[in-house]
């Protein structure tokens, strides 16, 4: 194994920009790693080696010419979730509906990565159209968790998280509609950030639930996530829900946090997220993180957000409603799959959607169609939107008492592949703690808190901040990370076993 793949993105960038290591070497080391382990891990749906090496060569030319790097991450390899459009690679969203689809335009996020000189290695596996918590709902087979190949890597962004934990890439991109960045980060011992809604452009992000979807950075360290956040964040006129405000100074905040002083920071423990239903090892790791926060000088207080307990129910009405509408665009007419069965457009459409969507997509389309039906609309969708308001109010009240809120990211560690795939409700419970953030549009991140005693698998600490409050969130995340690493004598990710072949 090349040592280059063990470096953080910040370390690798420094070596590339100083000329010590070439960007081509860095790209090749990661492509070799993918070739070596991805048969087992299955993090990638597509690897674009040629384009990756071509980008790296351009970065090397610039370094040789003495030109300033295009960004602090120029030349660093990245794994891109297969839900962002790319003109040079297929975009499938983990669905047979879009098998082989080559979009005619780049997502804004893709374009920003390219402009920053970041080397896009390929596209990562995901639950179909970002619906799931295990990546088992990919039409192309599950991704495996590098900590234990018999277990799930979380979802929907399991491919991106597994790529990081398997050292196939030091950076990745995810999307988070109800936890799809944070929960995979938690169960793979990596870092994942859901920015404030509107903080990262959704143009070219294939929609799951438009009012909840948010792209964000994934990495092995908080600083790396911050560096990537500043590359992809910011206003985009092509996304009308994009926030027209400067990107919070998250890199600076992460550096300050790593110095280990949180005095003056108020951390609110959400009473409703934790306790019953959470695995003992998850609770113990969370308690340890709270003790660390106190040791760092933070003031830890308890806050109550009573309506969070209704968040899951509201989410599983709002999300399917939006999904049923968004996935209506897959009609077999202009792009994507067409099954020529039946004489009329309607028959072809129904046959195509039957063949092209997997069971979870179908369940949610049907559920959403139900929730939006006349006679049910007020009782289900309308009422869920009111609960959404109450959850936002709970956040607002809690942020009066605390600068950030914390909870375990997920109720359990990675579970075995196959355990919950036929029990949708059990699968939905994985997002219990992450969903409120999406409903309110505030920011959230998961940072490793340790390993659960009973199974030795990673546990994540969720840190939540008000809209555009990412700076304090990164500061707290970086402080917790530095303190944990110091206590345990190294980063958690260093303890991931080598992928068995």
């Amino acid at each position, binding site marked *: 194994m090349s040592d280059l793949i063990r470096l953080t993105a910040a370390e690798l960038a420094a070596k590339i920009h100083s000329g010590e290591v070439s960007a081509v070497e860095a790209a090749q080391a990661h492509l070799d790693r993918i070739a070596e382990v991805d048969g087992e891990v299955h993090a990638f749906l597509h690897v674009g080696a040629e384009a990756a090496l071509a980008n790296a060569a351009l970065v090397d030319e610039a370094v040789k010419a003495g030109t300033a790097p295009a960004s602090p991450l120029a030349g660093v390899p990245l794994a891109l979730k297969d839900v962002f459009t790319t003109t040079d690679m297929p975009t499938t969203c983990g669905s047979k509906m879009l098998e082989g689809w*080559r*979009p*005619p*335009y780049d997502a804004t996020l893709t374009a920003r990565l390219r402009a920053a000189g970041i080397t896009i290695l390929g596209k990562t596996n995901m639950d179909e159209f970002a619906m799931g918590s295990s990546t088992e709902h990919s039409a192309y087979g599950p991704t495996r968790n590098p900590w234990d190949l018999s277990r799930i890597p979380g979802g929907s962004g399991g491919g991106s998280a597994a790529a990081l934990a398997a050292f196939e890439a030091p950076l990745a991109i995810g999307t988070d509609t109800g936890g799809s960045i944070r929960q995979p980060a938690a169960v793979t011992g990596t870092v994942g950030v859901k920015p404030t809604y509107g903080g990262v452009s959704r143009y070219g992000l294939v929609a799951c639930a438009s*009012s*909840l979807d948010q792209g964000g950075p994934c990495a092995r360290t908080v600083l790396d996530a911050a560096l990537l956040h500043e590359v992809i964040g910011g206003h985009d*006129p092509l996304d*009308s*829900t994009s*926030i027209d405000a400067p990107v919070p100074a998250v890199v600076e905040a992460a550096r300050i946090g790593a110095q280990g002083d949180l005095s003056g920071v108020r951390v609110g423990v959400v009473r409703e997220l934790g306790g019953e239903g959470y695995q003992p090892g998850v609770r113990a790791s969370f308690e340890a993180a709270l003790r660390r926060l106190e040791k760092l000088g933070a003031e830890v207080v308890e806050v109550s957000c009573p*309506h969070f307990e*209704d968040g*899951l*129910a509201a989410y*599983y*009405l709002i999300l399917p409603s939006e999904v049923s509408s968004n996935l*209506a665009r897959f*009609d*077999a*007419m*202009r*792009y*994507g*799959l*067409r099954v020529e069965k039946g*004489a*009329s*457009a*309607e*028959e072809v459409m*129904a046959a195509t959607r*039957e063949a092209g*969507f997997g069971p979870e997509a179908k*369940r949610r*389309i*049907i*559920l959403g*169609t*139900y929730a*939006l*039906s*006349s*006679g*049910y*609309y007020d*009782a*289900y969708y309308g*009422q*869920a939107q*009111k*609960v*959404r*308001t109450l959850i*936002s109010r709970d956040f607002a009240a809690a942020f009066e008492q605390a600068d950030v809120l914390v909870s375990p990211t997920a109720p359990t560690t990675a579970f075995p592949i196959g355990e919950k795939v036929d029990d*949708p*409700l059990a699968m*939905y419970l994985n997002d219990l703690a992450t969903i409120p953030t999406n*409903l309110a549009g*505030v920011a959230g991140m998961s940072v490793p808190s340790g390993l659960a005693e009973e199974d030795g698998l990673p546990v994540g600490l969720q840190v939540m901040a008000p*809209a555009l409050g990412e700076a304090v969130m990164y500061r707290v995340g970086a402080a917790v990370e530095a303190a944990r690493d110091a206590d345990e004598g190294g980063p958690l990710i260093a303890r991931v076993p080598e992928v068995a072949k």
Partner: protein
Amino acid sequence: MPADSGPAVAGPDSRGAISRDEVAHLARLARLAVTDDELDVFAGQLDVILGAVARVGEVAAEDIPPTSHAVPLQNVFRPDVRRPGLSQEQALACAPAAEEGRFRVPRILGEEQ
């Protein structure tokens, strides 16, 4: 907005009971040619899910305004300037079928129309 034609069966008061026929009706509305086996599985699963999400009905929220979007935004405008769009060739490149520079689609109107 509500869909035009909801399932003409029971209202949400009969919570925890979505019938196989209702699921079949919804699948038709959503243009999904589901199989009989799928109907059996989905009816049971959706019943369980609806039983769980029905708790939103118990939340006291009479005077609470609904939130459709987390970030309050007014209409967002940009200057009306010309910029390049997709060429006809690009737009048709991924079409399942194209003919004479247009999307070729199956029959849209029924016999009686």
